[in-house]
């Protein structure tokens, strides 16, 4: 049994869901996503038991492309994130009625499949294929089941697709170039072995950066984000912000830094600065957003800025913090978007101005939402704090001012999040009635919160899981 099992389950699940018809599809999708989760946990055990769960079979001879899935700790962590979030996301959508649901849920599973593949692939081209594949389903999810004015949506979604595709095509070119150097092989270990000149590395780094900066997104490549997050159905937004965005960050660690270490060291400061600029910019823009989902979008822009800055420090702390923060952010952002969805189900609006005074009507929801808000502003004893602290610490090791500027996130973040919370939840009782969370919604929230709090106090399992692989990556980075 190796990691390909997860992929197979998800792929079969996608088709099974599609053919199970509109009535059943959601249940089937949930079932398969849970199966995938169970399978990945099993695999995690095997991995910890030291079994070899990776897989390499040759696929195309010339150029040498192999179907290589390599699950080290880092990849497993991300796979687990995906496998854990997918059922939550699917389950969270149970409150809504989707037309042509079978296609909808099928696409979700397919996307999960593609993203898992991206995390696992250890062959440059296979990785690229999964990377592109993940783009297609979200395009349709956002396009067909999205909300808002159709024309606007069309524009936003197409922009998103073309923009991200543009980035990744340059990455493809870089990959081809690399494989030439590695006489025709796309295997990651062959690519790791390369010694490229500084100039080559610079261009490679740039090509990768374009792909990832757009996907993550870092400023100033983020213009697609807010619109798509707003226009996409909440499920799509969750997939985008919870998992897909992590693909970019993960790839930075897995591919960009080790493949162009000299360039990475050379221009470290530039990219850290870019990330931190993102933190400040995102937080400030988030202050004055009237649309709840847009606000959350900008907040996640700020957070990923910090994560990216952390991974560009090229220190173990930076990388580790980045990964922890990635996972934490994945959960919290999904929770927050779900909260937005819960409000939308009741009030049919995402305008913050039209909300307020919900707390008096729904204590449960309020407390859950509040916990999520606090987690996203990285209150100690939540998972996010562990990540954010580690990242900021690593930044302070590079230059104390990075830590100070990056640290403004804990002030600005608190500012806009609490401001949002105040205007959404507090104040005079709202005229519209707001039913408290249903059981389904409650479960989704509870799971997320449980994860956030547990790892907030005891992140050791994850740290132990990711540290060895991060160390090997660092060895590759520092090999010369």
């Amino acid at each position, binding site marked *: 049994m190796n990691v390909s099992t997860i992929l197979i389950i998800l792929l079969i699940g996608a088709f099974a869901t599609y053919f199970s018809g509109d009535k059943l599809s959601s249940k089937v999708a949930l079932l398969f996503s849970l199966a995938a989760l169970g399978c990945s946990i099993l695999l995690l055990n095997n991995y910890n038991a030291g079994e070899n769960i990776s897989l390499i079979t040759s696929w195309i001879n010339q150029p040498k492309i192999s179907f290589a899935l390599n699950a080290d700790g880092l990849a497993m962590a991300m796979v687990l994130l995906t496998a854990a979030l997918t059922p939550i996301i699917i389950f969270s959508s149970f409150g809504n009625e989707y037309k042509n649901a079978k296609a909808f849920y099928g696409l979700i599973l397919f996307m999960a499949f593609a993203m898992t593949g991206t995390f696992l692939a250890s062959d440059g081209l296979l990785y690229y*294929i999964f990377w592109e594949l993940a783009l297609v389903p979200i395009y349709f999810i956002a396009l067909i089941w999205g909300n808002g004015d159709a024309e606007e949506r069309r524009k936003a979604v197409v922009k998103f697709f*073309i923009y991200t595709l543009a980035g990744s095509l340059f990455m493809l*070119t870089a990959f*081809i170039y690399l494989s030439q150097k590695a006489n025709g092989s796309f295997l990651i270990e062959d690519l790791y072995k390369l010694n490229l000149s500084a100039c080559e590395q610079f261009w490679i780094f740039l090509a990768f950066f374009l792909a990832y900066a757009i996907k993550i997104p870092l400023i100033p490549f983020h213009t697609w984000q807010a619109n798509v997050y707003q226009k996409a159905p909440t499920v799509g937004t969750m997939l985008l912000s919870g998992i897909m965005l992590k693909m970019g960050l993960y790839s930075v660690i897995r591919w960009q830094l080790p493949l162009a270490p000299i360039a990475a060291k050379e221009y470290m400061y530039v990219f850290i600065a870019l990330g931190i600029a993102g933190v400040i910019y995102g937080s400030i823009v988030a202050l004055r957003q009237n649309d709840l989902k847009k606000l959350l979008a900008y907040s996640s822009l700020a957070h990923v800025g910090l994560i990216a800055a952390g991974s560009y420090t090229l220190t173990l702390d930076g990388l580790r913090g980045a990964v922890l923060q990635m996972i934490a952010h994945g959960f919290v952002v999904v929770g927050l978007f779900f909260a937005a969805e819960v409000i939308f189900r009741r009030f049919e609006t995402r305008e913050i101005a039209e909300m307020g005074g919900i707390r008096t009507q729904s204590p449960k929801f309020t407390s859950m939402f509040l916990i999520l808000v606090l987690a996203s502003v990285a209150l100690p004893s939540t998972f996010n704090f562990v990540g954010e602290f580690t990242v900021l610490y690593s930044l302070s090791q590079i230059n104390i001012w990075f830590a100070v500027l990056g640290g403004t996130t804990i002030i600005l973040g608190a500012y806009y999040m609490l401001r949002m919370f105040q205007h959404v939840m507090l104040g005079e009782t709202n005229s519209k009635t707001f039913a408290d969370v249903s059981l389904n919604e409650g479960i989704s929230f509870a799971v997320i919160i449980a994860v956030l709090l547990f790892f907030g106090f005891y992140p050791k399992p994850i740290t132990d899981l990711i540290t060895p692989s991060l160390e090997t990556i660092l060895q590759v980075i520092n090999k010369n």
Partner: protein
Amino acid sequence: MNTLIAITGLGIFCLLFEILNLRKAIIPFTILGLLGVLALNFCEFGMEQSYYNNMITVSKFSTAFSSLFIILTIFLVALSHNFYHNHPTKISDFVAIKIFLLAGAVAMVSFGNLAMFFLGIEILSIALYVLAASDRLNIKSNEAGMKYFLMGSFASGIILFGICLIYGAMGSFDVLEISESSLSAELPIWFPIGMILVIVGMLFKVAAVPFHFWAPDVYEGSPALTTALMSTLAKVVAIATLFKLVSGLNLISSLENQDLLHTFEIIVVVLSIASMSVGNIMALRQVNVKRMLAFSGISHAGFMLMTLLTVSASAGVLLYYTAAYALAGIAAFSVILYVCRDHDNEDITNFHGLGKTNPLLAAILTASLLSMAGIPIFSGFFAKLFLFNQTIQAGYIGLVIVAVINSIISVGYYFKLILAMYSKEPNQERTGKPFLIYAAAVISIALNIALGLFPSLVLDLLK
């Protein structure tokens, strides 16, 4: 060789069937026949030999491409059942013409002598003129036929002149002799000119910029099925022939002797960049799907031209690219045929809401468009990948970057169609599920994806 004969025979049989009043049987029979021919062709695969003192030489290259042509023709014939259902009397003619056209195509890739090459081109072209103008009461079709005819015969004139100059320089039409003597130094200046003229003629057939102007007009004007044929079969044949010319007459080395190679490469680079850019950019503002696909075809021609930079290595790549492109094209056109069968135009508006009315067809069209745009697991992606790989190997990274930018642009117009299908409300209900069209669409896209999953099958054929 036998392939060629068999195909011709098949064509004649079609005509006989009409006389014998077996009209119903024509299409099934032809398909079966073509399948037989395909099998025959497979048997010939791998045996290198030449017939009629080297008029025709069968090689891996020729057989591989011939099989591709035959497969495409099968699809086209299958599609013609529904397409000609309202003038049944002509069906045999049309099918027969297609078969003869196929014969011409096969001749073009398996010529061993420039005479054969010329005849091949002419058989193909004349058949195409007829098909283009075949809807004789429709002024558009007439115009398309006329334009195609005038420019085509003009191009044939150029080719003929080129052949003549080559003959003048070499004193022979035989490809082998020419290629041998082309290696010798001090050739008369008109040999390269002749080559250039022939290549220009072929570039016209491929519809490469700046010889592309006919394509959009003719594609738009001709009956949809003919357009399908042009944009898949004809284009593939043309590029394959061009490739065979350049490699068969081992032009590269002879140009090297007269240190013109660099010039030649520059020309190819410029042409391919121009083709893909013009094709993609012009396609952005098209409302007629056939016209749009014409421009996309031009841009693909630009991509395919890149193979001429690495002639020695990239036969397999070209085969793969053409197969991927043509199969996607067939799938796309079968959907277009279905959607636009009772419209007089092929505007995008006809596709509104196809995703709701016919999800399967919409999915297929989407898939084929994604394949043309080069999105993974569809073979279009791998085609581009291998092409870029070859080209970067040869050191033309700049060209590849331009190509990449072009593929980004191309997404713009491919997605216009997808958007129309999925995000607009249906403006008509579409009845009937013609079996043959569905079958053709499904099979072709399935083949396309299969190629994507197992690229080595095709890629390594011509090793």
